[in-house]
């Protein structure tokens, strides 16, 4: 079963008097274990697509299914549950809570899980260890470098053991060593833990490591192709408007 399926999903925004189509009848699927990059020029709909996958936004038309369940059938509470149990999200600007330490930031999503404070702490420590930041646990975001902050963000995304991690331009704010280090970390998690990654990027450093590239152009899926390191299925739902590689 596909983890996420888009069936003719369209998203329109109204900017003043003008209606903008950010995504146009996109058909798309993510399977467990995918390491997918969504790429395309600025304004092509990458972030919109990630938001829709992460149920942070709702489509204007079409249907999105997560683990086979139509998202449109879920109420607010169920959507909150879905986000907390299914997804981990990494943002371009890290988006850590500035008043919390690295450890507390990582523990934050676990507040939605009925586990003890001690277990939260243990799991957060483990997540931080996985991203190599054990000794920075008590540091606040403003005391960390950009790369370290993004690793904290990865740890926060990992800590709930989600089925799917969404990352919006995760390396855009990082220097090359940090970016490469992050890419390696993500790849390692994908390979060893079978964590599914979907991220938007036009960073070639990252694109070299992905197993599948989905290309968007003017809101339409222009290409969906496996790359050399592809380990996942490459099935794509048929679309009359999409070019499938």
């Amino acid at each position: 079963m596909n983890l996420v399926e888009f069936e003719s999903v369209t998203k329109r925004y109204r900017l003043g008097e003008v209606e903008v189509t950010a995504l146009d009848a996109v058909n798309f699927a993510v399977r467990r274990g995918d390491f997918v990059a969504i790429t395309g020029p600025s304004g092509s709909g990458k972030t919109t697509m990630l938001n829709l996958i992460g149920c942070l936004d709702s489509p204007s038309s079409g249907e999105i299914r997560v683990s086979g369940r139509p998202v449109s059938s879920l109420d607010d509470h169920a959507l909150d549950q879905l986000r907390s149990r299914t997804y981990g999200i990494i943002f371009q600007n890290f988006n850590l809570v500035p008043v919390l330490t690295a450890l507390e930031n990582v523990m934050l999503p676990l507040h939605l899980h009925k586990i003890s404070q001690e277990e939260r702490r243990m799991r957060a420590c483990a997540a931080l260890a996985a991203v190599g930041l054990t000794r920075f646990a008590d540091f606040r975001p403003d005391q960390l470098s950009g790369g370290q902050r993004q690793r904290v963000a990865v740890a926060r995304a990992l800590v709930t053991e989600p089925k799917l991690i969404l990352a919006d331009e995760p390396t855009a704010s990082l220097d090359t060593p940090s970016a490469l280090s992050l890419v390696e970390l993500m790849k390692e998690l994908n390979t060893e833990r079978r964590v599914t990654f979907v991220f938007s990027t036009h960073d070639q450093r990252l694109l070299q490591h992905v197993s599948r590239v989905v290309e968007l152009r003017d809101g339409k899926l222009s290409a969906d192709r496996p790359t050399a390191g592809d380990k996942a299925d490459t099935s794509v739902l048929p679309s009359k408007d999409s070019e499938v590689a």
Partner: protein
Amino acid sequence: MWSMAFRNLYRDRRRTLATIIAVSAGLFAVLMFLGYIRFVESSLASVVIYRDANAHVQVYRKDGPEQLAASPAQYSLDSAEQALIHRTAAELTHFVRASNQLMGVGMAQADSESAVFLARGVDPEFETALQQHSPLAASPPPRNGLLLTTQLQDLLGRPDKGSYLQLFGASYANRMNAIEAPLTGDFSTGIEAIEDKGLKAPLDLLQSLYDTDAVSRVVIQLDDRVHSGAFRNQLAAALERQQPGRFEVTTWDHPQIGQLYTSFMGFFTMVFAFTGIVVFTIALTTIQHTVAMNVADRTREIGILRSLGFSRGRIAGLFVRESLLTTLAAALVATALAYTVIAALALIGVQTQLPRIAEPTALTLQLPPTWAIGAIACACAGITLGALLTARKRVGGEVRPGRRGVPLTRMLASAACLLLALPLTAPAEEVPDEETMRNWLKQADLARGGWGSYMWKLSIHTEDPAGATDTDYDIAVRNGRALAMTTAPRRYRGEKILIASRAMWYAKPGLRKPISISPQQRLVGEAANGDIAATQYARDYTPEYLGPVELDGIPCHKLKLTAATDSATYEAIIYYLDRRSRLGVRAEFLTASGMPLKVAHFEYGNRVQINGEARLFVSRMKIVNANFPERYSLLQYDQVIPADPPESLFSVDTLMTL
């Protein structure tokens, strides 16, 4: 989340500080006002309980609190009832002591000055013991004489201490009575409204004025006022078992007793509620604005939390926690400041003038910790709720299109009102002029002894729920002056009422000099003293013709008589004159506000020879209370003869020697 909320307060310290200052200022104001109200409440309660000697619990006859002023005899407690109450109360817990009290009104006179008094007859020993518990300055109890407020003393021309004052009032048998007692000191009622009427006397002295051994009530002191309600209930139940429906037990805050307390506390509570709402609204608005600004500043963070799966409610909860922490910080500041100011005021010893309390009182704001905590808890709860609503709305991020304002009301076109003038020209009727009416009145007065010289015997039988009384007088009348001398019962023999030139005097054995009776005092008794003899409506009232009427089949002229002098007994009278005989058939005596006070019916069964002509003379007069028909007086005129009593009989100088 609490930790995160706490740390978030440091993100914009200026904003947090400004919010804390604003909220703490409001809470400080509320706490100080609360302390002031508690102080006022305590002071007013002390005035009612101690200064005014109401003690904690009072026992009256059923309906006594409402009816005592109008019918003191009927609603007083006799000796057996007093004993029963004392015995029953003493068996209950929290009882300390009980005492009898008598309340009454009358006129006090010193030399030529007189003034109305409101008297309380108390047991000096009880008063002394009761006052020991008062936080207010205690006044000396009345021992061997009268205590008057300084304002009442001023009205009486500042009589010297030790000088004798005359007290005049209506006895419980509805008779005039007077006593003399020395002025021994002054006191304050503590109530501005009655400060110029306050008089305190030993109970037995006041009982002698009202010629009774009854008392108005029994008051009971308890060990603490918090037990008042429970004690009242227990005592009421115990008395009800022994004499069902006989007694009414009240506490010091009963509206009829603690009127000062209830009215002012009602006012203060309203002011406090208003102030509280204003302050709360300001504090809430401040917090809401802070929440709104925080949300606006942290939209990105809210987005992160939403993406992590935090619900809107949870995120709103974070902002609510921040608001609550801010409010608690403000509450701490406000509480500390409030207690500091209270301590400083106590240290300085500030005095304040409380409303309607005569003398300045030491300002001791009272803010028990439980009250402060309660006020803060209420504020926190309200502010939390407000913050929650704001946060949920803001965090939701949905911008709904504002509803188009629909006017609640629409102005309607003004309607024209047509007034039709209907010139009503009633058929003209002959209206007698004033001189004609005065002649009618003079004829009517003649038949009631108002003009000319006569002597007769008058018997008055009075019916009252408190009991019936009979009094006999010898009446002598000469040219508008009258002397009434009591002949029976024996114990009242020697009492005299002199009506001379619109003045009235009362004398009885034992008094040093006659007492001048004011126009108001002439109304004492169902048969007013002014009705006993010498009625001269033609002289004392201005007539107005109201038209012809038929009364019990008798064609009458209906006149309205309005008092022409201050010495007239009544403010106004509706007088019905027989059209043929010109004799008064019925008179309705009105108060200043036009309400009926009494109704009199006249019968003319006597005949006297005047200028060789046999004329009808009043033989019976029945005066009925207009509000309580069971209260009436029957005046019987007998042995009416034309006479020529000496001038000396009508002189105030010789009144005591007659």
